[in-house]
């Protein structure tokens, strides 16, 4: 297992190398010019050109790519064109909010979606099943930003229970930290709750028709024991797969949620960097995200061995 994990981690290096080359090339050919954004609307074309030269953006592609790669190999993600701050420092500033949002969303999703899916499968065809599935269709159909606005209007503006925007670090305490994340996590999680509830239901329905479940019933095991110990464990592989995909998708979802709730996370940093053409920041974030994607896939594969002893690497 350990050698498998090491091999998988090593295999991320060529993947990230290809991603780096692809992203760098894409940004190079993409329209837009950070020098023009920096210079401001009143700047003359000559000013824009001087700034471009100052940033080294007038150099040939291979020179720019080589310089960047050389720095990456030395563990240096570069410096933001705009803020003059190291990209690694900017990413470090933003990691906690994004990871907090993703963690809360994930926990919320699993805690809500899996029981809902199990209940729907258990009561398949009944009003419970139909209600849960209707909710799933509804939640799946609503865009995250719409759910976000509605939640903010109800729970922040009308009831004044929670803040509308911002982020408080975990170091300031559990409740202040959680306060800022509840609404964004609900908004971001609604789609995943719907998705995972449906997958859980489908997977459970299949398992509940297996012979060993009938045997368990015949042995007189309790319903809860059958559902959560025997059936859910065997239905877990597809659920874990979808949760893994969900984590990867959460990174994309965080971009919208962080904008709606003004959370200073990686999603907003990405958007800002793209709009301004802050190339070093975009490249740094993409490298980080590509590593995270690979890592999540690895975690999913490892989790398979925990829920299904037949799977070995």
């Amino acid at each position, binding site marked *: 297992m350990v050698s498998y994990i090491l091999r998988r981690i090593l295999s991320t290096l060529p993947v990230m190398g290809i991603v780096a080359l692809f992203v760098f090339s894409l940004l190079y050919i993409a329209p837009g010019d950070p020098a023009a954004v920096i210079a401001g609307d009143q700047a003359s074309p000559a000013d824009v050109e001087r700034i471009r030269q100052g940033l080294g953006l007038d150099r040939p592609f291979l020179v720019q790519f080589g310089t960047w790669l050389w720095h990456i190999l030395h563990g240096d993600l570069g410096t933001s064109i*705009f803020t003059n701050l190291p990209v690694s420092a900017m990413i470090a500033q933003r990691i906690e909010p994004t990871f907090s949002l993703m963690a809360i969303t994930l926990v919320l999703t699993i805690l809500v979606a899996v029981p809902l899916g199990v209940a729907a499968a258990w009561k398949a065809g009944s009003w419970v099943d139909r209600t849960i599935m209707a909710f799933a269709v509804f939640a799946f159909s609503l865009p995250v930003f719409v759910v976000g606005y509605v939640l903010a209007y109800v729970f922040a503006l009308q009831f004044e229970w929670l803040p*509308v925007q911002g982020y408080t670090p975990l170091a300031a305490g559990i409740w202040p*930290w959680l306060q800022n994340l509840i609404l964004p996590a609900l908004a971001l999680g609604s789609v995943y709750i719907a998705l995972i509830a449906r997958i859980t239901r489908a997977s459970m329905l299949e398992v509940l028709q297996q012979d060993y479940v009938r045997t368990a019933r015949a042995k007189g095991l309790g319903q809860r024991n059958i559902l959560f110990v025997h059936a859910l464990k065997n239905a877990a592989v597809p659920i874990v797969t979808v949760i893994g995909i969900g984590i990867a998708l959460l990174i994309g979802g965080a971009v919208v949620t962080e904008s709606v709730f003004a959370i200073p996370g990686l999603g907003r940093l990405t958007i800002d960097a793209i709009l301004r053409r802050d190339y070093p920041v975009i490249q740094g974030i993409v490298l980080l995200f590509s590593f995270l994607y690979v890592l999540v896939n690895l975690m999913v594969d490892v989790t398979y061995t925990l829920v299904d002893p037949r799977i070995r690497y």
Partner: protein
Amino acid sequence: MDRRTVLKGLAGVGSLAATGGLSMPALSQGAAARTLRFVPQANLANFDPIWGTQYVVRNAAALVWDTLYGLDATLQPQRQMVESEEVSDDGLVWTFRLRPGLKFHDGEPVRSKDVIASLARWSARDPMGLMLKAIQNELTAVDDRTFKWALKAPYPKMLLALGKNSTPCAFIMPERIAQTDPFKQIPEYVGSGPMKFAKGEWVPGAKAVFEKFADYAPRQEKASWLAGGKQMLVDRIEWVVIPDPATAAAALQNGEVDWWESPITDLVPSLKKNRNINVDIADPLGNIGSFRMNHLHPPFNDVKVRRAVLAALSQEDYMRALVGDDTALWKPLPGFFTPDTPLYTEEGGEILKGKRDLATAKKLLAESGYSGQPVTCVVAQDQPITKAQGDVTADLLKQIGMNVDFVATDWGTVGSRRAQKTPPGQGGWGMFHTWHAGADCISPAAYNAIRANGDKAWFGWPTSEVVEKEVTAWFDAKNLDEEKAAAKRLNKAAMEDVVYAPTGFFLSYTAWRKNISGIAKGPLPFFWGVSKTA
């Protein structure tokens, strides 16, 4: 590794987080009242007001760096860091003396050498600074508080140049920082103004913090825009960047922020209904909407085509697309200068007045020989102002029979594409939309958009000797009457050549909670004199 190990590990992490975070800091009522939370118009992505000339950088910089002179609400430059000035009879030598007791944020006194280095850096980037540099003999220190600027020719607008609020302003920095190449970013932020920049708390894209500078020596006069006594009544100002307008509106209503610089018009009615919120016009100098045509390439290299577009252009259509039905927020602008300012004139603006004349427009177009070649109209969709204007223009061009190649893109792309001088079919452009702060259009001083000096002109590169002659006449004017006369001729010439197309004059709102007082109307948010009660 088995399931139990994993679960135990997860439980451990959870309990660690829980025990580590039970405490929370409480902001006392007094501290909250001394902290002003402000939502700026845009993200403060860099903090060098000479290198990056975006308005948001200028606005933040005005807190941190002081200027020698400051423009007041009557549009007159007043002494700020300067105690006195003298100009020789021939107008060639200016001698300035600094106020005593001026200090930088690192405790060092402000000396003439700092001013000289700051002015040298500023004059390499600012249009008025470049003019001064071109006629400069020498800029030297006489002593620590006195410096002399010797010129080859008189420059009557000297004080305006040093005190204007258009970007880049002549901010005074320590010599070691001001010696940075003006086309590279400064490495540190040691200011001379009433607030210090808390670099450690800066999260670009999210937050910028300014703390009161205890050793700042404000003038004794009442504050007026960038002039007078910049008395800070709060200890800390937090700029909270909220990119989504609906979220910013909700945060203001919820009391999470105190002041929102630029609420979008659509949300103003709901803010006005809230009894805890004040809404008012932000800046009486407003903005001028515009689109620029590329004078280098067909079809807009022919003045008849440019006039055809102007003859058909309905400013009301543009303004309603921008600000909706609130007629208090806009007015037609048959000219180039900011309404209700001394140089405002409608000379030559008849083409923009009255019922729109599509027949004349079509006739002019036919006379130009326009044969249906595509007009590349580059429109930034991520800026509500440019998007709304672009949609109206596309319709306008179609109405007069032009073939529109509508390029929907983002502002970053417009920023680079508009700098291309190649023909539209080869990566260039035919027209793009923007807007100008009214404060920049009160005179030709900082009004790049009205210049018509060909290659050196702003994007679109218009060439008109008459326009340039009148710009020079304004700079040389000895009094307001001469300035007005030059502005009239300039307006007429710029309209005849269609240097650019003004789409109207519009205002915007600002909104703040009622426990905030002292907010002044002006071209930028002025924080001095603003106080907050708990």
